[in-house]
């Protein structure tokens, strides 16, 4: 495809007000956001006290020359902008650099951990959705019932309980007393991995499920109070037909909250990772920030930001798919 042709094609796509245009613009904006973010994080970490070379050797009687040679190896003495531009240039060529702390490439370091964190976030998300959404709908439908009240109370506890405490409580009950689930670690792969992730996923899901429950319940109740429901009832639509109408409309705020939940899960696993001795990106990020291991911090920040941006995009596309109003006016 020649350049003129591809340029024409792009102009066509952008002018159409279509979903494709929307996606292209959003991806470009995401790229820009990542660029700005990478600079901000790089600058912030640069400003924090501490010296990665000293962190690497720890409490040792080392000569200034040795520290200097480590700094030279990782270009830590270069001016700030030249460090940043070197990093950026390498990233644009797909090279995320080498971790100072681990002496291995960032890509190698992240690959297993990203999988683990995605699995943990995924399982947690799944648990949140299958528990919170149906309960929220049922509670809204029978607003004021025993079910509604008891789940609402439980959700307050769920939102309020600290993750760390919930994790330890689950470990005591299911790991130690009942001896059903393992106490720590990420297992040996396959089913064992998922089995190890059950308690951590429940821990993460407990607070989120409570939140999603409340949101779903509120969304459904607010739809039930709309005029169209009364009209539909007066026109003699069946309960089932009305329910389908209501749920479809209530899905929009629920989907938004679920998108946020997933984004939060991906970036918010650190406490659970530490409690259950799981090596995901959360615990790596925490260690890398204090160590000032710039390449690792940058990679994780950008990865997390990308996941959040892509999730938001997916939610918007979802609107497009379920809401005819959005389809008609085009999404912006």
């Amino acid at each position, binding site marked *: 495809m020649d350049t003129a042709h591809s340029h024409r094609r792009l102009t066509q796509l952008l002018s159409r007000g279509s979903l494709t245009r929307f996606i292209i613009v959003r991806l470009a904006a995401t790229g820009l956001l990542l660029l700005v973010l990478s600079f901000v994080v790089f600058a912030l970490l640069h400003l924090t*006290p*501490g010296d990665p070379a000293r962190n690497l050797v720890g*409490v040792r009687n080392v*000569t200034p020359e040795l520290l200097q040679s480590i700094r030279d190896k990782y270009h830590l003495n270069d001016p700030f902008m030249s460090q940043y531009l070197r990093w950026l240039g390498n990233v644009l060529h797909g090279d995320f650099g080498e971790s100072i702390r681990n002496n291995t490439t960032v890509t190698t370091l992240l690959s297993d951990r990203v999988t683990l964190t995605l699995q943990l976030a995924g399982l947690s998300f799944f648990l949140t959705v299958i528990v919170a959404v149906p309960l929220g709908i049922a509670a809204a439908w029978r607003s004021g019932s025993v079910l509604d009240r008891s789940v609402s109370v439980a959700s307050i506890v769920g939102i309020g309980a600290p993750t760390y405490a919930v994790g330890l409580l689950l*470990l005591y009950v299911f*790991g130690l007393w009942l001896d059903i689930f393992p*106490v720590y670690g990420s297992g040996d792969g396959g089913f064992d991995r998922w089995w190890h992730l059950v308690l951590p996923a429940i821990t993460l899901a407990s607070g989120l499920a409570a939140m999603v429950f409340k949101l779903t319940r509120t969304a459904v109740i607010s739809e039930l109070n709309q005029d169209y429901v009364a009209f539909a009832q007066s026109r003699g639509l069946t309960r089932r037909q009305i329910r389908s109408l209501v749920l479809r409309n209530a899905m929009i705020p629920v989907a938004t909250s679920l998108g946020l939940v997933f984004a939060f899960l991906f970036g918010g696993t650190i406490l659970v990772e530490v409690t259950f001795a799981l090596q995901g990106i959360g615990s790596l990020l925490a260690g890398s920030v*204090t160590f000032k291991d710039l390449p690792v911090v940058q990679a994780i920040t950008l990865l997390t930001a990308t996941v959040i941006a892509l999730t938001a995009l997916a939610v918007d596309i979802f609107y497009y798919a379920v809401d005819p109003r959005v389809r008609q006016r085009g999404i912006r």
Partner: protein
Amino acid sequence: MSPSIQFNRRTLLAGTGVSALAMLIAACGGDDNGMSANGSGTSGSLKEIDLLTVAFPSSLSNLYPGQEAGNFNYYVACLVGEGLVAPDGTGKLVPALASKWEQTSPTTYVYTLREGAKFSDGTPLTPEDVVYSVGISKDEEKSPNIAYYWANVDKAEKTGDNEVTITLASPDVAFEWGPCAANALWITSQAYVEGNGGEMGTPKALLYGTGPYKVTKFEPDTMVELERVDTWWGGVPPVKTVRIEFITEEATRVLARKSGDIDLAISISLDQLSQWENAADTSVLFAPDRSYVGIDFNTAVEPFDDIHVRRAIAYACDRATVVEKLLVGHAEPATALITPDQISSVLGLDGARKALKEVLDLPFDLDKAKEELALSKVPDGFSTKVGVSSSAPQVSQFFQSLAETVKPLGINIEVEEMPVEQWYDTIGSADWGLAYMWYFNATGDPAEMSSWFLGEGNPASYSNEAVTELMAQAKEETDPAKRVEILLEAQKTALADIPYIPLWWGEAATAINSKYTIEDFGSYSLLSPWTPRILTVD
């Protein structure tokens, strides 16, 4: 790539292994210095153990201590790799891959390699491997954490079919600890390292050496698994598989022990001691760990350039109460920079304590503190701050109690907690006139910490010609007893000026499945192949 040999031995310690192992245990664990703190005096016997699960409180990202040199890296590395020498139970150096060695001149050390020593895949050890491994240790890029130990080494060369000679640039007796897996040498093979593109200690390039174990699995920051081999000169160890998990959350580690998932928890936290002691089927062992905690003054920073100020603070330190209350008795009030275990091989443990007590024994005395402050240039007091690593809660508590003690004298100490990485920056910094040191001596060499603290570039900016002269003598003195004498003299001279206030010598606590015990558990127990010291309680 891991070595390919698979060894599955069901029978226990067959053939020559038994006698060699028995000899090793006799050599390593035969100390009678009262360090074993098994409490009940539990005894046991050497039995086959299929799997021993160990939990470390911090995680390892790289298995090669030259790259990552936490205490725990050493505990793994010494099972897989060996140096030319190794410490015995009292901290005396005994043969490892060198069957003997000799210092032929103040700067020349000749090592005779052990006949028939092999790597874990059966490849015989050559003098070239030793020379190559020294080169790696000396390389600042490959081994940033230990290269400084080799800075004074001029060359290492093969001087015979079974002999390697190491030449120093200038005499330094402390070098003896250099070629030791407890410190700065893990002999590996050139072919193996180069076959892995120069990488070492990563999952792709597992640690490879001549020790009793090989690494079969390493997931950085998650776990490492070791499998015994039958190629070690010391015989076949009784523990077949050692699985080491990294559990950073102490509450989870306690649960893992309670549920029986782990057998051995190394370096347990004193904060949760009662949890460990109350766990079923669990014993807690204590042993000194050669760590030193003490105050550093930057004597170039006001008002700590005034000896009266330093002495006032020294009189306000109540070491005995700190050890009893904050450390629940599991430490020892310190009176010198050297820890007792570093001179016990020369003086015996009791003799060591007695000698060290004479170095600096300032009693807790607030009246004297007041008098000293009155003599200083800040008689009405002053304000200062101290940075404390958040990983050292006891130190933070100590400084808070010190702050309370000296408040009536007009001295305000603000305790600032910070991540350990920021704390490194406080050492010897002009911004922090009052600081502290928590130092783990890697070796049993009595000059290890003092050569830094009393040498050039020390964190206190302290200089005293008499001390410099004594330290120089100690570097060249080959008679261990005389050397200890000189070092004690140097400390006495220096500490009279109070650039440092020793606070306590630490102890490490280890929790173990009460089915097992560690024979003669002491300061050096985990620094040479230690699984043969795991006994099954009868």
